[in-house]
């Protein structure tokens, strides 16, 4: 097994009295793309959000178990959540650029973490290039980000995450609001990003999971049913449930 970048052990999550994630054990390998698949409401997004502590915002969420980034305990009290979120970036389902200009969307992220001012333009340019957006926006960096197309907005959101040089990027159905061409661009982007980053992506789209994943985790009703390489999951899944789901019999 390759280097493990991100992991969860005996993870249980409750919203109030509802038991949402049940005994999840999972390891994400470094510089790979891992897809989380499963029917709606199975806990994929909830699991994803555990890793950058987005559930901190939900007052009645209770998390048990150990989550680690390398050797760091993600939920350790002393470790600052802002530093953690710099190391584990997140891209959301709906593109969510801030109501600022394209440039400010990027510089906002950098300023939060006290990057030196004179390096900003250079860092922003290289992150936009890495996200295949530079050529399209270099003339109009002052334009409001919401004026971009949906696909461009999403690439901007990815660039905004990439500019902080995180170690892990979490993506929550990043293409579900986009058209096929934009989706294609984002998928290419994901494949090129995995050289430098560990990527965990939630997706509803089986074809997409096959196109981009190294590993695939299938979840159902809050449990991790099967976790394997994408060939094994899609061609010879060990569990009947997984087989049925990936072949489109339910879900």
């Amino acid at each position, binding site marked *: 097994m390759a280097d493990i970048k991100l992991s969860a052990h005996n993870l249980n999550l409750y919203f109030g009295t509802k038991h949402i994630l049940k005994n999840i054990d999972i390891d994400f390998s470094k510089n790979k793309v891992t897809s989380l698949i499963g029917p709606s409401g199975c806990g994929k997004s909830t699991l994803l959000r555990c890793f950058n502590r987005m559930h901190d915002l939900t007052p009645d969420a209770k998390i048990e178990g150990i989550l680690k980034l390398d050797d760091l305990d993600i939920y350790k009290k002393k470790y600052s959540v*802002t530093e953690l*979120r710099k190391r584990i*970036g997140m891209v*959301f389902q709906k593109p969510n*650029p*801030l109501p600022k200009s394209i440039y400010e969307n990027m510089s906002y992220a950098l300023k939060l973490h006290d990057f030196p001012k004179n390096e900003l333009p250079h860092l922003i340019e290289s992150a936009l290039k890495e996200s295949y957006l530079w050529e399209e926006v270099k003339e109009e960096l002052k334009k409001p980000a919401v004026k971009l197309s949906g696909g461009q907005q999403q690439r901007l959101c990815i660039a905004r995450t990439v500019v902080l040089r995180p170690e892990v990027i979490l993506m929550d159905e990043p293409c579900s609001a986009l058209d096929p061409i934009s989706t294609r661009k984002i998928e290419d982007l994901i494949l090129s990003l995995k050289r430098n980053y560990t990527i965990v992506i939630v997706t509803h789209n089986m074809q997409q999971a096959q196109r981009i994943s190294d590993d695939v985790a299938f979840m159902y009703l809050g449990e991790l049913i099967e976790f394997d390489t994408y060939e094994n999951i899609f061609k010879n899944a060990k569990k009947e449930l997984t087989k049925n789901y990936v072949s489109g019999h339910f879900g």
Partner: protein
Amino acid sequence: MDIKKRESLDWFFKQAFKATGLLTICMLGGIFLMLLYNSIAFAMDIKPVDFFTGYQWNPGNANGKYSILPLLVSTGLVAAGSMIIAVPLGIFTAAFLSEFAPPKLQAVLKPVIEMLAAIPSVAIGFLGIVLVGPGIAKLFGIQNGLNALNGSILLAVMALPTIITISEDAINAVPKSYREASLALGADKWTTLFKVTIPAAYPGLIAAVMLGLGRALGETMTVLMATGNAAAMPRGFLDSIRTITATVAIEMGEVPYRTTHYFALFAIAAVLFLITLSINLLGEYFANRLRKFQA
């Protein structure tokens, strides 16, 4: 009931509701026309130039002075002072309520703040005379605590419920995805609030301030009781003042009918009306923009 009857009943109610709606508009129009008519009568006696320049409001006798300036400056001063106090306080309270307060505290605080609006202005004025005014006198070592500062503090209290309620709506209306975007980049709650949430809520916050300001400008009883009643040009917040509203309230009862003085009171009321009307319209305009943003 046969169809004929139903139809005529339907027609009747339709007209009745239309009439009540139109009545409101007629009242607004009527008030405005009345103010305008009397203001024109005033302009026959006193040149508008003298009205808007000059430094003295000293009506009544044959060569009375009718300059709105000291009253207008008083009104502006006391209202501006109240906004300086109420705007930061109101917006921060609203931000606290919507972003930080636990639900239980919210459930207590919100009705309490709304109750603040239910206190009669005469009670607040009373508070100004016996409590805030003497406090100010002591604090600054002056004789008379009944001054513009006193009025500003009291008006701030009265404008707060409006400002807080509307600001909170505005802050709540900022899409959650903005906050998530900021937080996921590693911003803390405070940075997110000041750099993302509040800027995104600006149109609504402006509406809140405008409507609060309208309230402060139009308030009468409190400023009448608590600001010292001196119709002279104020030099600062520690001077006693008299606002337009207070002037009308005090002098209207004793003024001889259809004299220059009588018309003058209508004229200053008309000026105030135009100011508050435009501020309210501006506030509504921004509030409407907020509603579009929510949809």
